[in-house]
C-alpha cells in the first residue's frame, strides 16, 4: 500500500483560482464586445496588445525568478490584468501606451511585490494612473464612436494603433465626464455609444457582468453595493442642494469608470479587505473618493485614484475590522473575562 499520508479534509468544495479568472473574463465579455462594436478595429488591436504585453511580462518575470512557468501562466491572472487595463484605456490609444502599461502593471506593480496575491495595489489601476500622469496627451484623447459602419477597417485601424498619433487626432472629440459637452442621456450611457475609455462606456453590460459574478459567488455583494452607494449618496445630496452646477447622481453612476471599478476592479480579492465590515468601508471609501476627486480634483475622473488610495488603506482596514471571535468579545477578551 503506497498511499502517502495526507492531511484532512479529504474532500474539497472550492472553485480553483483559474476558474474564477475565467468566470471574470466571461463576465467582461459582453462589455468588451460592445466596445469593439462601438470603437472598431483599433480597440481590438489595443486589447490584444495589452494582453500580450502582460503575458510576456509575466513570463519574463517568472523566468527571471526561476519559478515554474506553467502554474503561474495557467492561473490566468496576467490575461485578466491586461484585459482590465485595456478596458480602461482610450480606445484609439497607440500600441506603446498599452505595452508600457501592461509591462508596468505586471513587473512593477505585481511581480516585484512577490507575484499573485502579494501586490498592494491593483495592477491595472496602478498602470492606468502611471500612464495618465506620464502621457496625459495620449491618455485623454477620446474618440466619439463613429457611426456604425463608418469606422476604420482592419487595415486602416493598424495605422491608428501602430502608426503615427496624428491620425487619431482628426476624430477626437469632447472630453469625457463633461456633462455639458457630451450631452448626457441615460440610454446612450447605458449602452455605451459615447466617448470614453474602451470598456467603460456601457454601464448596463458592465453591471450585468457584475451581477453574473455576484450570482455565481465569485464576488461579494458588499464592495460593489458600497462603492455605488458611496458615489450615489453624496452625488444625490449635492444635486439636490445645487442642481445647476452639479451633475445628477445617475450621471455619476453611469459615466466613467464607476461600473467597471465597482464590479471588476475594487472587488479584486488581493487588494481589498477580507473582513465583512472592512469590505463595506472599502467600498464606501472608493465611492466617496471617486465623487470627491470628480467634484474638486484636478482630474476629471477619480475611480482609479480612489481605488488605489483605498488599496493602500486595506491592511489598516483589515486590522481594525477583525470579526468577533466565537466566545470572545469584540475587544478580544473572553466572554467570561471581567477585564475591560
Amino acid at each position, binding site marked *: *500500500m503506497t*498511499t*502517502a*499520508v*495526507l*492531511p*484532512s*479534509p*479529504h*474532500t*474539497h*468544495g*472550492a*472553485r*480553483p*483560482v483559474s476558474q*474564477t479568472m475565467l468566470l471574470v473574463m466571461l463576465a467582461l465579455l459582453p462589455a468588451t464586445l460592445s466596445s469593439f462594436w462601438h470603437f472598431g478595429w483599433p480597440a481590438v488591436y489595443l486589447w490584444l496588445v495589452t494582453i500580450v504585453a502582460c503575458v510576456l511580462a509575466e513570463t519574463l518575470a517568472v523566468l527571471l525568478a526561476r519559478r515554474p512557468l506553467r*502554474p503561474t501562466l495557467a*492561473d490566468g491572472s496576467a490575461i485578466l490584468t491586461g484585459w482590465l487595463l485595456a478596458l480602461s484605456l482610450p480606445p484609439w490609444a497607440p500600441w506603446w501606451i498599452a505595452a508600457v502599461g501592461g509591462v508596468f502593471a505586471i513587473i512593477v506593480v505585481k511581480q516585484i511585490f512577490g*507575484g*499573485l*496575491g*502579494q501586490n498592494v495595489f491593483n495592477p491595472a489601476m496602478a498602470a492606468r494612473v502611471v500612464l495618465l500622469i506620464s502621457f496625459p496627451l495620449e491618455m485623454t484623447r477620446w474618440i466619439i464612436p463613429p457611426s456604425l459602419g463608418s469606422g476604420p477597417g482592419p487595415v486602416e485601424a493598424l495605422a491608428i494603433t501602430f502608426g503615427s498619433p496624428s491620425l487619431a487626432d482628426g476624430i477626437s472629440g469632447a472630453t469625457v465626464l463633461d456633462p455639458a459637452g457630451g450631452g448626457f442621456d441615460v440610454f446612450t450611457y447605458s449602452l455605451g455609444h459615447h466617448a470614453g475609455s474602451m470598456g467603460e462606456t456601457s454601464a448596463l453590460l458592465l453591471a450585468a457582468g457584475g451581477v453574473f459574478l455576484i450570482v455565481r459567488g465569485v464576488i461579494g455583494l458588499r464592495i460593489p453595493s458600497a462603492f455605488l452607494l458611496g458615489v450615489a449618496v453624496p452625488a444625490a445630496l449635492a444635486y439636490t442642494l445645487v442642481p445647476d452646477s452639479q451633475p445628477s447622481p445617475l450621471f455619476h453612476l453611469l459615466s466613467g469608470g464607476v461600473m467597471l471599478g465597482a464590479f471588476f476592479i475594487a472587488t479584486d*480579492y*488581493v487588494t*481589498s479587505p*477580507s*473582513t*465583512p465590515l472592512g469590505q463595506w468601508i472599502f467600498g464606501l471609501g472608493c465611492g466617496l473618493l471617486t465623487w470627491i476627486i470628480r467634484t474638486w480634483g484636478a482630474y476629471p475622473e477619480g475611480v482609479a485614484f480612489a481605488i488605489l488610495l483605498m488599496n493602500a488603506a486595506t491592511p489598516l482596514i*483589515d486590522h481594525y475590522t*477583525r*470579526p*468577533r*471571535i*466565537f*466566545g*470572545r468579545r469584540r475587544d*478580544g477578551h*473572553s*466572554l*467570561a*473575562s471581567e477585564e475591560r
Partner: protein
Amino acid sequence: MNLSLTPLTVRANRLMQRWGVHPQDRKAPASGTAITPLPLPEQLILPLSQHIGSPARPVVPSGARVLRSQLLATAQGRVSAPIHAPTSGTIVAINSAPIAHPSGLTGPVMVLEPDGLDQALASEAVDPFTLSPAEIAERVAAAGIVGMGGATFPSAVKLGLGHNQPIQTLVLNGGECEPYLSCDDRLMQERPEQVIDGGRIIRHAIGAERIVIGIEANKPAAIAQMQAAARDFPEISVIKVPNRYPMGSEKHLIAWLTGQEVPSTKLAADIGIVVHNVGTAAAIHRAIRWGEPLTQRIVTVAGGAVRTPLNLEVRLGTPVSALIEFCGGLVSEPARRVMGGPMMGIAITSLHVPIIKGSGGVLMLTEAEIKPAAAATPCVRCSACVSACPMGLLPLEIVARVRSNDLAAAQELGLKDCISCGTCAFVCSSGIPLVQYLNHAKGELAANERDAKKQAELRALAEARSERLQREARAKAEAAAQRKAERERARAAAKAAAAAKKAEKAEQNPA
C-alpha cells in the same frame, strides 16, 4: 416537538449565525441500510490508546484465555479508559502494530484470537435510577466509555463535572455533520429508546434539568423516531437543526440550540451545559442497564470505491480490511482511505488498521470525491475562509503569520480558538492546507508553553535554592558572629577576672 417553544431570542441569535459550509452530504446509499452485525474476524487488534489521555495498561498476559467483556487493560490516571475483550478467545500477542494515526505510526496493541464461542462474563443489570451519580460515573469509567463522536474523551470525566457546578442542560449531539457518515442516524432510527434512556441516565448523573437533542435536518426518519421515543418524557426536546458543517461541533450546537456562547478558554460546563454524542448515550445505556462494557460500535463503510456501502456493527479491534471485504470489496483502487469523516478523519495507509472506539466511518474515496487541488497555489485573499470559519477567525492572516514563524502574532489573531474543523481548507480556492498549518502551529504553541512552564518551574526551584543557600549562609554568619561575640565576652570576662585577681594580689602584696 418543542420547536414552537424556542424562545424568540434564540431564534434571533440563529439569524446572526452565518458560519460554516455545506459540503455535499453523500450519506446515501449507506444511510438507507439497516445496521448489520459484522461476523467475528480472525484476529482482533486492540490498541491500548483508543481515547484521549494516558494509554491503558495490560492486566492479562500474552497466552491468557479471556471471556467477552473481561478487562484486558486498565485505565492509567484520571483521563484514561480501560479496554475489554470484545469476544472470548486467547491473547496471542502484546506488541505494536499499525494504528489510525495522522503520521501512519504503529502503536502498542493487544492481539486477541477469537475462539468463536463468544462466551461472556456474567454481567449485572441494575436500575440506574437507584444508583448515585458517583456510582454511575464509576460504572461508566469501568465500562471504558469514551466520546463516540470521534473526540474519544473519557465520558466519566464529563459525568463528574456535575459535582463541581450546577448543570442545567444536557445536550445530546445527533448532528452528525460529517459527510458520508450515518452511524448515528441509523442508531437513532433503529434504537432510539437506547439513546433516550442513556440520555436520562446521564441527566440523572449530572443533575441536569432538561435534555435537548439536536439532529440535522437531513435525518428526518431519525428525528421522527427520536421524537416518538421521547414522547413520554417532558424534560426531553428533540430539535431539528439545519445541515451545516460543523453543526456537530459542541460549541456550535450549543449556540444553535440554546443561543448561549461558550466563552473562549471556558468549558461548556462553565455555562451549565454538558454535551454527549448520541452514540455515547446508547453506550452508557448498555453499560448501566446491561453491565456491558464498550466493545463494539456502529461503523459506516462508504465512499465511491466501496462496492456496497453499509452500516456495520463491529467488534472493536476488527481490521478495516474485514469491513471492506464484508461490503463486497473495492470496485476501484481508492485515492484515499480514511478512518472517520472526510472533514476531520485520518488518512490511513494500511487496511490492517483496527476499528477503535472513536471510528465512526471507514471511507474509500475516489479521486473525483476528494477533488484535490493539484498543488497549493499562492493565496489570492479571496477570503472564502473568513466567511466560512465557524469561530470568526481570519485563517488566511493566521496562516500567513504561521508561515513566517510569528507564532505570537498568530496567537494574537486567535490561533488558540481554532477548532481544527477543516472548513477553511475545504473552501480554499488556492488548495492551501490551511488547517494543517493551524494544527501545526497549535502544536508548536503547546510545546512552547510546556517548555515555558518547565523553565518557570526550574527558575522557581533555582531561586528557592539560592534563597535557601543565602538564608543558610546568613544563619551561619549570624551564628559565627554570635559565637565570636560570646568568645570575646568570655575573653573579656577572663581578662577582667585576671585583672581583678592581679589587683587583688597587688593589694595583698603592697610592698
